C-alpha cells in the first residue's frame, strides 16, 4: 500500500490511518517548547588563563550542559511532553561545532530536534538576538532557559529574548504549570515567593524547584544520534560588548585560626579587624 499522504508513514490498515491522523491533529494542538541549552565548563574546573590573560584555557576542560538549562528547563519541558501537554520540544544552542557532544547529551535526555547556531556565545545580546531570530518564525508557545549560565553568570539572555520577540518574561521560576494556554508560574521574589499567571507565549528562566535532574537512560542515549541536529548560520549582528581580559582572584591569605574556647577573640577580630560587625 502507498504511504499515508498526511504523515508519510506506511499504511498497515484503515484503523492505522485514523490513529495516525488523530495523532497528527493532537500534535498540532499541543504546545511547542523551545529550550535554550548552553555549554559550560564542569563545576569543578580550575580556571586557567592564557594568551596574556585574554582567553580561558579550554584544553583538558570537561564540558557539560549548563545545569540550570538541563535540570530545570529541559527536564520540565520533557515532563510536559510526557504528560501530553507539549507536542514538540526543540533545543537551541549558540555555539561552535565543539558544543555538539553536549547538545547530543541534551538530546539523550529528551527533545525532538536540536538547532545549533554556529557562533561563539560570549556576548549575551548576540546570543539572544540569534535565538530570537531563529524562534521568530517558529511560533513557540514556551521558551525555557536556565536562570543563568555558570560560566558568565549574566542571567540576561531570557529577558532579552522576550524583549526581542515582544512577549512576556518571568524570571527565577521555581515551578511551572500549564493550564490550556495559560502558564501558572511560581517565582522567587525578595523574601518570598509569588505565583503568577500569564498567557502563552512566554519566556521563563528556571531555577531549583522547577524540576528534578534526571540521568539519561539507554533508550534516550541511543535515540540521541537519530534525532536531528541542524546547524544554522547566525545573522550578521554587531557585537555590543567584548571581554578584553580576565583576572584570577588574589590568593587568599591563610586562614587565621581562633581557639574554640576563646570566642570573644573572634568577635573582637570580626569587629576591629574585619570590621563586619
Amino acid at each position, binding site marked *: 500500500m502507498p504511504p499515508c499522504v498526511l504523515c508519510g508513514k506506511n499504511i498497515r490498515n484503515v484503523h492505522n490511518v485514523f490513529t495516525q491522523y488523530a495523532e497528527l491533529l493532537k500534535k498540532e494542538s499541543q504546545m511547542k517548547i523551545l529550550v535554550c541549552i548552553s555549554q559550560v565548563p564542569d563545576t569543578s*574546573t580550575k*580556571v586557567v588563563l592564557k594568551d596574556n590573560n585574554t582567553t580561558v584555557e579550554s584544553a583538558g576542560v570537561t564540558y557539560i550542559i549548563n*545545569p*540550570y538549562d538541563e*535540570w530545570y528547563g529541559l527536564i520540565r519541558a520533557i515532563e510536559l511532553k510526557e504528560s501530553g501537554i507539549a507536542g514538540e520540544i526543540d533545543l537551541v544552542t549558540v555555539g561552535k561545532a565543539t558544543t555538539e557532544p553536549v547538545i547530543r547529551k541534551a538530546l539523550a535526555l529528551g527533545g525532538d530536534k536540536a538547532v545549533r547556531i554556529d557562533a561563539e556565545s560570549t*556576548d*549575551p*545580546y548576540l546570543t539572544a538576538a540569534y535565538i530570537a531570530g531563529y524562534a521568530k518564525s517558529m511560533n513557540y508557545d514556551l521558551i525555557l532557559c536556565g536562570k543563568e549560565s*555558570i560560566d*558568565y*553568570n*549574566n*542571567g*540576561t*539572555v531570557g*529577558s*532579552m529574548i*522576550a*524583549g526581542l520577540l515582544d512577549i512576556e*518574561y*518571568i*524570571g527565577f521560576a521555581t515551578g511551572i504549570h500549564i493550564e490550556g494556554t495559560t502558564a501558572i508560574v511560581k517565582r*522567587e521574589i*525578595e*523574601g*518570598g*515567593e*509569588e*505565583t*503568577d*499567571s*500569564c498567557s502563552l507565549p512566554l519566556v521563563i528562566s528556571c*531555577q*531549583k524547584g522547577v524540576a528534578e535532574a534526571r540521568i539519561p537512560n539507554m533508550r534516550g542515549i541511543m535515540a540521541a544520534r537519530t534525532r536531528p541536529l541542524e546547524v544554522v548560520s547566525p545573522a550578521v549582528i554587531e*557585537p*555590543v*560588548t*567584548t*571581554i*578584553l*581580559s*580576565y583576572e*584570577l*582572584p588574589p590568593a587568599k*591569605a591563610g*586562614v*587565621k*585560626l*581562633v*581557639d*574554640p574556647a576563646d*570566642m*570573644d577573640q*573572634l*568577635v*573582637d*577580630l*570580626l569587629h576591629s579587624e*574585619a570590621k563586619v*560587625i
Partner: protein
Amino acid sequence: MSVIVFVEHDAGIIKKKNFEAVQYASGIAQKIGTTVTTVILGTIADDELKKLGEYGAQKVLHVEDSRLDELHPRAYTSALIAAVEKEGAKIFIALNDINGRAVAPRVSVKLKAGLVAGALSYPDTDKGFVIKKAVYSGKAFAYVNITSDVKVIMLMPNTFPLAKTEGKAVIEKLAVNFGDKDFGIKIKEVSKVTGEIALADAPLVVSGGRGMKGPENWYLIENLAKELGAATACSRPVSDAGWRPHHEHVGQTGGTIRPDLYIAVGISGAIQHLAGVNGSKTIVVINRDPEAPFFKAANYGVVGDAMEVLPRLSEAVKKFKQHK
C-alpha cells in the same frame, strides 16, 4: 544626557542597595560631567524619594501608576524607556537583583545597548567603557568593554560602601501611557517569609551544613543569627534532606550571596558550595575537621565541635552588643 538609574522600592521603602546604585551612577556622572536622574515606579511618598538626593541624584522621575507596585517587566520597560528618551540618556543603571534582571536586559535590547550584569567596578574609560564582573561562579573576573553608544550596567549590590552627601534632588512626576499588553502577568498569590531577615541582601549570614548532624540542632544556628541580626542559610545536602527550606540553600545551583560576613558551620566547603558564597567579604569557618577544604577559603577558622562553639560564640556576640 543624564545617567539614568532604575531605583526600586519595597512597599514605599527604598532599601540600601538602591542608594548604592544611585551613588554608583553619581560616580560615573561626575566623571563624564553630567547629572543623575533616578526613575522610580509605583506608589511611594515624596519624603522617601528625597533620600535619593542624599546619595547623588539630581532628579527623581516618579511614575506614580499604582499598577507598577508589582513587577511587570513590559510596563517597567516602557516606563524606563520613556525616562531614557526624555533625558536623552546614554547610560542606564539598574541593580543586579531579581527585578533588575527581569527589566534591565529588556531595556537594553530596546536601546540596542551593550549590558554588563554584575558590575564590580566603576567603568574604566581609558580603554573604552570597561567594567569588571565576576565569572565562572566567582572563580575569576572579566573586564568587559561596552562598545555600543548606549550602555547598560547592572550593579552588584554590596560592592561599594555607602557615603551620604548633602545633595538634594528635584522630584518630578512622569506620566507614561501603558497598553493592556504591558500588564500581561497576573499576580495570583504572594507569600513572604515573615519574621526573618531575608537572605538575598543580608549583610550577615550564618549557614549550616551536614556537620550540624540534624535539624534538631538548628536552634544553635538560629540563636547565633538572632544575636548577630543575621539571616540563615544552608548547604545543598541540608536542603536536599529537607532539614531547612529550599530558599536557604546557597551554592552553585542554589542562591548566590555576597554578605559582609558569612559564618559557615559544619560545611566542608565543596566547590559547588563556594560558588554561591565566594563573593562574601569575610568568611568564618567552624568545623570539627581540620582538613576541611573550606578552611582554605576562610579568613577566620575555628576547629571545634559546632555544638560547643556556637553557644560560646552567641554569648560572645551578646556580650559584645551589650557593651557597645
